[in-house]
């Protein structure tokens, strides 16, 4: 008789954490610096991209998803997917209002 399948418990070490910390600080400096350069429409895109990259690093390493079971990865994905559905489908209404009647 076996216990329900368990995922191996992985202890993440300080070296990894330190690397991620440095990466996050560098990205923060980058995003602040880049904000002063005028790139038109790309400013918000790059800002959000850097934000997403930072979030992914925190989720994968500080929050251990890199070392977790598939169920956990799917769970995180489901959360962000639902958030994106809220944003995109609501915005689709607002954006298409200007398109006129057919």
């Amino acid at each position, binding site marked *: 008789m076996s216990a*329900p399948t368990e*995922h191996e418990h992985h202890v993440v070490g300080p070296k990894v954490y330190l690397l991620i*910390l440095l990466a*996050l600080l560098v990205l923060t400096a980058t995003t602040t610096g880049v*904000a002063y350069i005028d790139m038109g429409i790309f400013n918000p895109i790059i*800002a959000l991209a850097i934000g997403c990259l930072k979030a992914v690093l925190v*989720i994968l390493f500080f929050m251990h998803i890199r070392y977790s079971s598939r169920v956990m990865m799917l*769970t995180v994905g489901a959360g962000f997917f639902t958030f994106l559905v809220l944003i995109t489908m609501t915005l689709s209404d607002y954006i298409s209002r200007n398109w006129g009647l057919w």
Partner: protein
Amino acid sequence: MHDEAHPAYLRHHFVTVGQQRETASFGMWLFLLTEIMFFGGLFMAYLLYRNWYYDAFVAGSNTLSIGLGTTNTAVLILSSFTMAMGVYSAEIRNRKGLLISLSLTICLGLVFLGIKTVEYHNKYVEHHIPGADFSVEDFVHPADKRDVPLAPDMAQHAQLYFFLYFAMTGMHALHMIIGISILFILLYQAWHGAYVNGHTSTIDNFGLYWHFVDIVWIFLFPLLYLISRHPLK
């Protein structure tokens, strides 16, 4: 009775410690999903009104101190690091390391809130809090020559920017306050020997919460502080 496979902290409805640990972690992740959707509503409001009143949002954003904002971001990221180190200390059963990590996380959290208080105070002094006291003049006739003056109705809409600023950072700060309060409790428990005996779930899962609060700020910072800063001359 209790043995290696059935320590005292194994609750009766779980078969193994591993099952209990993974269950607790799963539960915390699901709670964080609810937090994503909770903040999601605010992000939706922000995205809509930034799209409708872009100029007002630019003007509003430029009144925030980028120095304080960037510092706060770094402080919070550092606190995530110290929290992760706390989890590591608990895993390797290092009580002193855990105590230091938790204390540092608390300090950094308090520094963040302190800087936030300074920023809120600045907004109060500059009459940028939306409502009766709001200074529309500041935006119609901006003091700084590099700022673009707004039409009076667009200047009124800057209030929406500041409302969202206070609502989003306020909701975030509320989560920080709750987190720091729990950290004090964890510190107290850790002082008395908890979490370094193999039962690291609580520290693990609080860490998840703390990192999540960090992630919210990671998005709030560019969205609120970095909307089209003055180009470098």
